[in-house]
């Protein structure tokens, strides 16, 4: 293959082997990593106890479920499904709006370049607390406090929205172009004028984009927190699956996928128009 008349002369004096330098250069670290990873994998896999007879029983049930997607049953549980969807949608909408309204002051307060130290610390701790737990755990606590139903879901999702939006908003504000703030500050503007003239125009498009994105996420989450009693379609789905009513479950899942698809598509559309 290489027998071609034109070659650089005296090639023979050069080495004929070359090895790519390893990604981790220190040998002990490299072999240590290999050992650690393979050791973990062996331990991890062996600690998964699989009940094969139960799995074997499950396979036909899995087929039933998959085929249920081709014969979804929207009717026999239609009132439950309708109630669940209604709760999910209203919960999503109200919690997103309330979450945005609360996120803006908290986000501004959590921006190091705008807020005085005590306010900064207070807002940052609010964000840290709201972010540290899964929505489902927060939902459990709210259900215990206000009882079953979508109000608990609303509170959960509002809190989750704050943790998401206020954090990203604060980071955005911290990243804004300092020269614009300085220019407005040098005109003798007040703090509120500074926010209005220098900060708002810079962060507004992204805030709208993030809010649309959060609307998506809130709908998806609203389908889940019903499992612990916080309202929404999740409770209906949970019941359907518990009773092995796979065609109703398939119908609910198809509705969820469709709504997620529509909202993702339209929020992408709005995001593109804003930016």
């Amino acid at each position, binding site marked *: 293959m290489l027998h071609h008349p034109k070659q650089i002369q005296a090639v023979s004096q050069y080495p004929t082997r070359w090895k790519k330098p390893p990604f981790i250069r220190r040998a002990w670290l490299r072999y240590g990593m290999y050992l650690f990873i393979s050791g973990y994998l062996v331990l991890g896999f062996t600690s998964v106890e699989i009940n094969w007879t139960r799995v074997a029983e499950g396979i036909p049930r899995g087929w039933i*479920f998959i085929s249920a997607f081709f014969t979804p049953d929207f009717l026999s549980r239609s009132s439950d499904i309708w109630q669940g969807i209604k709760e999910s949608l209203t919960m999503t909408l109200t919690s997103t709006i309330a979450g945005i309204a609360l996120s803006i002051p908290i986000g501004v307060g959590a921006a190091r370049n705008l807020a005085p130290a005590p306010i900064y610390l207070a807002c940052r701790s609010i964000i840290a607390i709201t972010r540290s*737990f*899964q929505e489902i755990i927060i939902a459990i606590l709210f259900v215990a406090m206000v009882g079953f139903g979508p109000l608990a879901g609303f509170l959960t999702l509002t809190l989750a929205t704050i943790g998401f939006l206020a954090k990203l908003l604060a980071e955005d504000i911290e990243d804004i172009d300092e020269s614009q703030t300085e220019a407005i500050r040098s005109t003798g503007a007040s703090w509120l004028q500074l926010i209005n003239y220098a900060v708002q125009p810079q962060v507004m498009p992204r805030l709208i984009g993030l809010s649309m994105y959060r609307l998506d996420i809130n709908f998806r989450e609203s389908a889940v927190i019903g499992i612990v009693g916080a309202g929404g379609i999740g409770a209906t789905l*949970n019941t359907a699956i518990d009773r092995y009513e796979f065609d109703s479950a398939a119908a609910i*899942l198809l509705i969820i996928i469709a709504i997620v698809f529509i909202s*993702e598509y339209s929020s992408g559309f709005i995001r593109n128009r804003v930016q």
Partner: protein
Amino acid sequence: MPVQHIGTKKVWQRRTHGDRFRIWALQLVLVVLFLLAWRLMNENTMWIFVQDAPRQAVDIGGRMLPPRWSYMERLWIPLWDTLNIATLGTLLALLPAVPIAFLAARNTTPSVRFIRPVALLVIVGSRSINSLIWALLLVAILGPGLLAGIIAIAFRSIGFIGKLLYEAIEEIDISQVEAITATGASPAQVLEFAIVPQVLPAFAGITVFRWDINIRESTVIGLVGAGGIGLELSHSLNTLAWPQVSLIFLVILGTVVISEWVSARARHAMI
């Protein structure tokens, strides 16, 4: 036109009347929507319970404290299971997610018209369904346990990893691909020499990012019977053992903080 003529005077305004009206109308629509949705949502809300909420909160808080520390010895194994669900689930997801991403990326898919839409459909389907719902289904199908949890985490991760990875593939530098193509390399060689090296850092970052999310998710999927520490949480909640619940919350918090730190370090080391 922000400058308008009123009589002979020029008046500057930030927005025209039409724009101001539209913004005002949008705000009004949002408020009305909020109120309507609020009424619809709370048709069945028992406000007596809600009024009672602060007292309930204090009550539960009181019961939760102090956490039952001795319960910790029964949490180590569920915690190890949680780690396994997240890690093995992430690894399992990589097997289908990587090829799906290449099939979904416009510049590597064999057929834009037929195969790409199918790959995108798999990604959307996997992404729209939360891991907890996947877990719910798989527990019904395979029975409770770790296996259902691992597969649930994997199913949800396929869409996440697939989507971010195919976006990374679509953003690669074409000139490197052209250069390798021009050497007479086969399509498979173009893939391994020009495309894979470019997406490898994104791939590592995405995987670690998803692993971090999966640690969080695998702490709760036990609530529906899919193994891990969520299973203990479920037992403790059902028996109203609040001091155990509070300990589990602390353990989950600690796990999440550690996994966030590990993933940040890992991403830093790889990029």
